[in-house]
C-alpha cells in the first residue's frame, strides 16, 4: 500500500506541492491530473525518492521513502516524462543492464527479460538497437525496464506524451494490464480522456494542492449535487423555461441547440416528480435525461486554471 502523508515541497518562497495526502492499494490505477506546472512531476519525483520533500513523507508497504530511500527503490518502477536510453546496445542488452543493476541473479535474467518483452510486446524487437526504435517502442522499452525487477509501485509521468494514436492505445492497454496484475500504478497526465478509460482512482492537483482524490465514480457523485438535466421540448421552449424557473429545485436554465439544460438541486425523487408535473401540465417532452459528468467536467468544475 502507498500512503502519502502530508507531502510538501518548497523552493524558497514557492510552494510546489502543498501537503498532499492519499492512499493507494494494490491494483489501483491512479490518474494524477493537473495542468502543466501544477506539481505532478514534483510529487512523482518525491515518491520516486529522487527529490527530498520539505515536509511530510510517504510509505510504501510500511517503508518510509524519506528515511529509507534505498529500501524503497527496489520496490518501485519509474518512467519519467522525458527519458533517454543508452544507445549502441540492443533491446535485450539494455534490459540485461538494468536487470544486473537491480541485482537480479544471472540465472533468472533471461526468463524475466523474455516475460517483460512479451508483456510490452517488444519480443520481435529484442535484437534491434535501442536508438532504431520508434518513439512508442522506446516508451514501451522504458516501461519494460521499469518492470524487470517486478516493482509493486509504478510511477508513470506522462507515459503517453508524444505518442501516435495507436501507440497511445497500446500503452493504455498495458497500464490497464499492470493494474490487473495487482500493481499500484500512478499515472500523471494533463490529457483527461487518456486517463478516463483505465483509472479507477483520480487525484486532481492544481497550484500544488490536491483538490480532490478518490474513486472516479465517487468524485462524480459528489459533484453531481448540482446536476444538469437535459430536456428537449417539442415546440417553442419559452413557456417551458418560464414553467421550469418557477420550480424550487431549479437554479437556472440554459438553452443550446433547442435543448434546455436545467441546473437541478433535487434528488432522483424530485427529478421524477418534475417530469410527471411537466407532462401533467401538457408540455410535450421529446427527451428528458440527466447529463452525466465525465472526467473533463469534473476537472473543469474543480480547477481554476492556476499554476503554482
Amino acid at each position, binding site marked *: 500500500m502507498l500512503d502519502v502523508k502530508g507531502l510538501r515541497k518548497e523552493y524558497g518562497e514557492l510552494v510546489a506541492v502543498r501537503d498532499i495526502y492519499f492512499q493507494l492499494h494494490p491494483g489501483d490505477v491512479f490518474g494524477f491530473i493537473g495542468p502543466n506546472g501544477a506539481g505532478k512531476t514534483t510529487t512523482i519525483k518525491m515518491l520516486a525518492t*529522487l527529490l527530498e520533500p520539505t515536509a511530510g513523507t510517504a510509505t510504501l508497504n510500511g517503508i518510509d521513502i524519506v528515511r529509507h530511500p534505498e529500501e524503497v527503490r527496489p520496490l518501485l518502477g519509474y518512467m519519467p516524462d522525458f527519458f533517454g536510453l*543508452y544507445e549502441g546496445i540492443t533491446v535485450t542488452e539494455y534490459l540485461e543492464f538494468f536487470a544486473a543493476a537491480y541485482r537480479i541473479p544471472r540465472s533468472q535474467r533471461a526468463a524475466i527479460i523474455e516475460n517483460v518483452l512479451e508483456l510490452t510486446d517488444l519480443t520481435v524487437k529484442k535484437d534491434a*538497437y535501442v536508438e532504431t526504435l520508434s518513439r512508442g517502442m522506446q516508451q514501451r522499452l522504458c516501461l519494460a525496464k521499469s518492470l524487470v525487477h517486478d516493482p509493486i509501485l509504478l510511477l508513470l509521468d506522462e507515459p503517453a506524451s508524444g505518442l501516435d494514436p495507436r501507440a497511445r492505445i497500446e500503452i493504455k492497454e498495458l497500464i490497464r494490464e499492470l493494474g490487473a496484475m495487482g500493481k499500484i500504478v500512478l499515472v500523471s497526465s494533463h490529457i483527461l480522456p487518456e486517463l478516463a478509460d483505465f483509472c479507477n482512482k483520480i487525484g486532481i492537483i492544481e497550484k500544488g494542492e490536491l483538490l480532490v482524490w478518490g474513486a472516479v465514480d465517487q468524485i462524480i457523485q459528489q459533484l453531481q449535487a448540482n446536476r444538469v438535466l437535459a430536456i428537449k421540448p417539442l415546440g417553442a421552449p419559452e413557456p417551458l423555461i418560464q414553467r421550469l424557473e418557477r420550480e424550487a429545485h431549479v437554479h437556472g436554465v440554459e438553452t443550446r441547440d433547442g435543448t434546455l439544460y436545467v441546473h437541478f438541486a433535487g434528488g432522483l425523487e424530485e427529478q421524477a416528480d418534475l417530469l410527471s408535473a411537466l407532462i401533467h401540465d401538457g408540455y410535450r417532452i421529446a427527451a428528458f435525461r440527466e447529463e452525466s459528468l465525465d472526467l473533463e467536467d469534473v476537472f473543469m468544475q474543480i480547477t481554476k486554471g492556476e499554476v503554482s
Partner: protein
Amino acid sequence: MKRRPENPLLRYQLFGFTLNRWKRQPWLYGAVAIGGGLTYLLVLLLVAFSNASFPVALQLCLFAMCLAAPLMAYHLFSTEYEKQTWEPLALTRLTAWEILWGKWAAALARVALLTLLALPILFINEDLHIDLVSPFRGRFITIFEPTHALYVFVAGVSLLFCWGVLLVSLGMWLSFLLKRTLTTASALYAGQVFALALMPTLYLIFSEGETGSQLIATIRSYREGFAWWGYSLFTAQAILALNPFWAANELNAIYQAWETTSWNRTDPLYPEGLIYLNWGFAQSAIYLALALLFAGLTYRRLKHAWRK
C-alpha cells in the same frame, strides 16, 4: 569468499557500444582503426629516426595525453543528464561507489591503454640506446643501459600515467558539476592551456626567468627535498615543478648527469637535488592525490545529490 556484485555500468562503459559498433559498421570502424594504427606507426618511426631524446619522446606522449584524456572523461556524467538517463540509473540498486567506479575505472583503463601505447615510443629514442637489431645477432637486449635510465624511464611513464589519471578524474568531477558535455570539454582544454602554458609563462615573467634551480641545487637530503615541495607552494615554484612538460624536461638533467662522469650543468649539484626531490615520482604522487580528491568530491556529490 563473498563474491563482489557485478558492475554492469563498468561493462557498458568499457565495452557497451564499442563491440556493437564493430558489429554494425565493421568497415567504417575498421578503416578508423587502420588509420589510427598507421598514424601511431608513423609517430613511432618519427621518434626512432629523428634521434629524439627521452624527454622529447615523453613530451610528445604527454601532449597526446593532454589531448586524449579529456575525451575519456568529459562526458562521463554530463551525457547521463543530457540524455536523461540519470534518474533511472540512480534508482537502481547500484551504490554511489559502484556508479563512480563504473565510470572512473573505464576512463582509467583507457588512460592505462594510452600509456601502454606510449611505451614503445618511450623505448625507441636515442637516450635509452635500444638496439632493435641486436636480438637478430644473437645478443640480449640491454634496455636500461646505463642503469640510471631505469629511474628516468619509470619516472617518465609514471608522470604520463598519473597526469592522465588526474585529467580523467578532474573531467569526471567537472562533468558531474557542470552537467554539460561541451562546457566540461571546454573547461578541461582551457584549464590545461591556463595551467600548462599561461601560468608558467606568467611565473617566468615575474621571476625574471629564474626557474629555482639554484635552490634545488642546495638540497642535500630527502628531508630537505620534502620540505622544498611544501615551500614551493608558497613561492609559486610549484607552478613549474608540477607542470608535467617541465618535469619531463628536467628528467633529462638527471639522465645526462648520470650518463657522463662530468655534470653537464653549470651547477653539478642540481641533478642530485632533483633526485632528493624524487623528481618525477613526487609529481606523480601529487597528481594521484589530486585525482583521488576529485574522485572523492564526485563521490560526495553523488551520494548526497541522490541519497545513495
